[in-house]
């Protein structure tokens, strides 16, 4: 499976919920995941602390980037074997339009999942799915059992 995208595991949502429960940052971001016909979608549950500028009440750019990076990791957790450790190396986020003080949704596209590294694209939107607020290109080091 080194060059293809691994399938979702049957317990994908359980794994995601367990990871979120163990991460103070994920809880602060108020992340949740939902299974859909063609995969998973993720939600940033809006909280006042996510605001970057209280005057225009837009989400903080760093919060958006952190949310998209977290979704990328969760997508890999839902697809790779439990013994695999993940370490994010790079997140490059482009902000297309101003965000609002409301939930953000995200979907993940796995560009390539190699034996040692995964290239992931995360797209975040508010309202209609074509109202894209930001998109991230994320590099994640994949550390498999016996490699550490």
């Amino acid at each position, binding site marked *: 499976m080194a060059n293809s995208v691994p399938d979702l595991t049957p317990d994908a949502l359980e794994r995601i919920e367990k*990871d979120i429960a163990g991460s*103070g940052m*994920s809880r602060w971001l108020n992340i949740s995941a939902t299974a859909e016909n063609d995969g998973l979608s993720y939600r940033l549950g809006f909280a006042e602390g996510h605001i970057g500028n209280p*005057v225009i009440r837009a989400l903080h750019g760093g919060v958006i980037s952190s949310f998209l990076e977290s979704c990328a990791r969760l997508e890999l957790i839902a697809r790779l074997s439990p013994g695999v450790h993940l370490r994010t190396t790079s997140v490059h986020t482009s*902000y297309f339009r101003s965000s609002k003080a409301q939930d953000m949704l995200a979907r993940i596209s796995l560009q390539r999942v190699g034996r040692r590294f995964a290239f992931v694209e995360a797209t975040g939107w508010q309202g209609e799915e074509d109202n894209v607020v930001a998109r991230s290109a994320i590099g994640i080091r994949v550390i498999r059992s016996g490699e550490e």
Partner: protein
Amino acid sequence: MSDTPAQPDDQKLEIGDDLPDFILPMMEASRQFIQNEHNLFARLKTFRPTRIMRGQADFSITVPADFSAAPADSGGQVIHGGIFTILLDTILAYTVWTRLDRFMPIATINLKTDYLGHAEPEQAIKVMAQCEGIADDVAFCSGKAVCAGTGDVIALAEGTFMVGTKGRSSASRL
């Protein structure tokens, strides 16, 4: 716990003599807002500027265990990388304002963060950032977060910001 205890928070603020007039009152208002009302920054043990110059800003920061990553991922309790993205985005934005002659709203166009190392809860962290310049209303910034005790790099960031955005009235950030 960290091998590098938090440094005594006694470093005086170094301020450039050519800063724009609005920057210090704006930073004080920002400090009061985030320390009293913002539920992320208010939970940081330290979030304090140590050096504000034209185009540069350094901050002293300590992050509590509240913002840890999932232990299964890290093998131990470390600070989630996302907190550094948030801090670097914030401090890079401050450096843009130090370059301006009058206050203008700004918006992040893009932000790249590379994670080289990690920090443990309560570890003393220093963030150093600069705005290299502004061209055609786009500000070019970079910065890094390091362990205050060892100088080891935790994260690097490069960001661009649109200067003079209109805020809520515009559908676009740009």
